[in-house]
């Protein structure tokens, strides 16, 4: 994030009430799943964003369709921090089931906006109370019966706008954005917002301390979810075959492909699609199709999550060994097993890296932002074809389904890399080829594609032992040689996959290694700790296999905390294997509770070990 405002964060932590706190707070809206609160929440989020205030929006929703409590959190941070925070200064609840809990969790000196039909004791003196007649107003203003529950949500938008001083123009812009310019819904929603705004002005005393003010913290930025970013990256990466099976939180990636492919990738001349998307009958079939397509020369991919990854084990090993390009997005959720489908985690690191029985090791990309979701979208397809192997992209629910700011995505810097493919002309010139021979010293053979019109083009692909010319073999030497070449290819992957981002601080004794969506919490935690005098270096891993530069980085520090969101310290495990000399210098710093990490947790976890 480039446009950070250089003033200290304001957090009401000691109970002392400041006069006003501007652009620095978290809002949580507790509603019911399926009640249509998404429009209201994204409107608030985008309105703040349009006012130039750095924001991030996170949805904590149940694995259920309708009627269960769901919490949408918006953090505004003038400094541009986007990690989750535990404290919520402003709580809105329309949901009686969770109201008592929600109330108890309002930060001291916080604001509690609640549907006026929620009856419960509200005795806190450190909270500003704002009852709102959400249902009544919605009933009054919405004529369509179906939209009445939905409308209640817009009422709190208006109330909140009044309290915070949110620009009604920004709200209208946000609604226009949301409804893609359709005037009718914008107007009917604005009617409610304005009515609620006016009602609040007449009925509420705005003595609470939180306010917003226009600033220029989001200039030039976009706001989007990681799954859409990944889909767009793939589209700009030339993906032309997709097979997938629905699963939370990966579904919206495929949805975005379904939405944007027809918009961006119809052949200009023929008007026909340059792609095919197939909803498979399960994940075994999804990856099977992707592997078949990759083998036949498509830029092919799938997206899934934990249970799907488990089901893809056999095909991943096949693609690894038969050397077939395939891209697999694992938008990780909590495991083991069905786990918590709507909670975030980084628990598939070992699984994805070692997926396949026998000796397999897969290339994995680890985006930490929606910018990288886009970038790794196209890079993954390049790497898969270049390396002729499955490439995983390990995103997660937090990154994939939540709304993040980002600088606009850059157009891919390099041309599509289609890897080593021989044409009929090449075959004429070369008079044959050996599919699995390492002619270039990088462990990667040359392949041909079905449809190559040459009598020498064909070869036979199999998951059983094969020699350089793709012939079946059970000879020990052939096996060992082939595996050694695959080992070499893995080393090639180590050097051509995205390299770590290293921020080595002069004189730092301690360091953090991490990856993926923990980045915002770590950045913020480092800033906090820096204030307390801790110099902490930071290395962010962008891909597996692990880069060799990590070894030097570890060597340069006394203690290295490996921050991650899983139970078994999985990345720490891979670091230990990669770098046995590091011994006990690497320290686990992991939490896996389904929630994105907070800067508070990261800094306290490190401090507790440092002290």
């Amino acid at each position, binding site marked *: 994030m480039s446009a950070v405002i250089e003033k200290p964060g304001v957090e009401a932590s000691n109970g002392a009430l400041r006069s006003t706190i501007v652009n620095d707070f978290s809002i949580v809206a507790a509603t019911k799943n399926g009640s249509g609160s998404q429009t209201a929440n994204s409107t608030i989020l985008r309105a703040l964003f349009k006012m130039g205030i750095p924001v991030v929006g996170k949805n904590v929703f149940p694995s259920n369709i309708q009627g269960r409590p769901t919490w949408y959190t918006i953090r505004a941070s003038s400094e541009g921090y986007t990690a989750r925070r535990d404290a919520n200064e402003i709580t809105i609840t329309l949901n009686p089931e969770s109201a008592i809990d929600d109330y108890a969790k309002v930060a001291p000196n916080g604001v509690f906006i609640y549907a006026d039909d929620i009856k419960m004791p509200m005795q806190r003196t450190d909270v500003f109370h704002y009852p709102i007649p959400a249902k009544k107003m919605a009933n009054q203003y919405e004529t369509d019966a179906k939209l009445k529950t939905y409308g209640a949500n817009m009422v709190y938008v208006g109330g909140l706008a009044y309290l915070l001083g949110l620009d009604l123009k920004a709200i209208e812009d946000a609604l226009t954005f949301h409804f893609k310019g359709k005037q009718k819904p914008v107007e009917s929603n604005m009617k409610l917002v304005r009515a609620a705004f006016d009602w609040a002005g007449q009925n509420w005393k705005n003595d609470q301390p939180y306010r917003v003010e226009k600033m220029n913290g989001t200039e030039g*930025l*976009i*706001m989007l979810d990681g799954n859409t970013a990944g889909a*767009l990256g793939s589209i*700009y*990466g*030339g993906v*032309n*075959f997709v*097979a997938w099976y629905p699963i939370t939180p990966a579904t919206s990636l495929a949805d975005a492909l379904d939405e944007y492919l027809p918009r961006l990738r119809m*052949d200009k001349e*023929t008007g026909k*699609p*340059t*792609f095919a998307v*197939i909803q*498979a009958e399960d994940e075994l*079939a999804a990856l*099977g199709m992707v*592997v*078949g*397509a*990759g083998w*036949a*020369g*498509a830029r092919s991919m799938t997206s899934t999550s934990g249970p799907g990854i488990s089901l893809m084990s*056999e095909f991943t090993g*096949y693609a690894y060994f038969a050397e077939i390009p395939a891209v697999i997005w694992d938008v990780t959720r909590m495991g083991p097993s069905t786990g918590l489908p709507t909670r975030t985690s980084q628990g598939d690191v070992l699984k994805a890296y070692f997926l396949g029985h026998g000796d397999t090791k897969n290339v994995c990309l680890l985006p930490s932002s929606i910018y990288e979701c886009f970038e790794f979208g196209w890079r993954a397809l390049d790497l898969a074809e*270049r390396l002729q192997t499955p490439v995983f992209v390990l995103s997660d629910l937090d990154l994939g389904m939540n709304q993040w700011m980002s600088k606009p995505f850059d*157009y891919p810097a390099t041309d*599509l*890399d*289609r890897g080593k493919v*021989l*044409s009929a002309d*090449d075959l004429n010139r*070369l*008079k*044959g*080829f050996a599919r699995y021979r390492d*002619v*270039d010293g990088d462990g990667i053979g*040359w392949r*041909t*594609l*079905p*449809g190559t*019109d*040459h*009598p*020498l083009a*064909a070869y*036979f*692909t*199999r*998951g*059983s032992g094969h020699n350089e010319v793709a*012939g079946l073999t059970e000879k020990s030497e052939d096996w060992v040689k082939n595996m050694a070449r695959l080992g070499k290819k893995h080393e090639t992957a180590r*050097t*051509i996959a995205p390299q770590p981002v290293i921020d080595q601080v002069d004189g730092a004794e301690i360091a953090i290694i991490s990856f993926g969506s923990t980045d915002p919490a770590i950045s913020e935690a480092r800033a906090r700790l820096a204030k307390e005098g801790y110099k902490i270096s930071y290395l962010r891993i962008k891909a597996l296999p692990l880069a060799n530069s990590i070894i030097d980085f570890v060597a340069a520090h006394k203690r290295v905390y490996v921050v991650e969101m899983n139970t078994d310290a999985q990345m720490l495990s891979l670091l230990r294997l990669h770098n046995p000399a590091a011994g006990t210098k690497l320290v686990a710093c992991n939490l896996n509770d389904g929630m994105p990490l907070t800067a508070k947790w990261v800094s306290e976890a490190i401090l507790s070990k440092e002290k």
Partner: protein
Amino acid sequence: MTTENKPTAPIVKEHIANINMPATVKPAGPAAAKPVVALNLSGLAKTDYKGNESTLCNGCGHDSISAQIINSMYELGVKPETVIKFSGIGCSSKSPAYFMNRSFGINTLHGRMPAVATGALMTNHTMHGIAVSGDGDTGSIGFGQFKHMLRRNVRMIYIIENNGVYGLTKGQFSATSDQGAMLRHAGRNDFMPIDMCLEAIASGCGFVARSFAGDPKQCMALLKAAYAHRGTSMLDIISPCVTFNNKEDSTKSYDWGRKHDERINDFGYVPPHEEIMIADYKDGEEQVVEMHDGSKVILKKTADSHDPTDKFAAMKLCMEARDSKRFITGLIYVDPSAQSLAEVEDISSGLPLSQIPNAKLRPSPDSLAKLMAGMK
């Protein structure tokens, strides 16, 4: 590391003894002398359709089927380069290595070939698929994929080399084993065999036939007609396993087949480029099914011949035959009308996905700039 598409240096200096190399590879260049053999429409000899030497047991039904694949493709004049061979895992699934070395081939996972074939044939819809599977591969582990592939109507010939047993793992019951059959370790098989043809019809397959590896002529005729079908053509070919399931009381044995083979219809196949002499076919005695590519299946009508365009009759026939252990063979059901998956996905008229130039795969910088602007 180079990221270019074309090899910049000679990849292989000399000609490699590729064990997959076709038998009569013609040296590149136009002036090469042709061997003195009968050439087909594509100018190829039968040897151009050969595969590696089979490693199956002597007399295995699967080898006869491979031979008929070679014969039919040769006779149709199909260019091997336009064919992809697919298989799962099993003795049957090994056989694609034993025919048509000049075709691409992929031996996938046990029971999961339909998915791979779907992906590959969508990526190049101009290629013809010849898929070979076993009764274990398709009927047990792969049953779900099989049924879903049929539902999607991916264009390919899908052959089940049905021997009622797991050959490669040495003789366990498969889902098509006879009810009441006995095995050394597992004892009696108490389950009703799955009828692949019945299942195919239920799943909407538009070309369903059964044949017998011991009947090369019928196999060949079916293969030719199957080749012309617009979607998946499913051939359930009873193919005796001489090592594990060839006892005479097995309905999948040569003996049983020879004794009980009951042809439900007789038919001929007329390729698209051949004219039918109307005079040759008397109205009322022949039924003509026109395939999507213009070729024709000509059925001789007799009193008890089965009409393969009647779906209910086809289903009933399959069910009754299963119940009474009748060994029926022939064209069971045909309906050339349903769109194939490539048509449904609307990619059938364009270049294969694998040949679309890079420039068309990456939208313009401008389009990205516009998108980004819309996300602000």
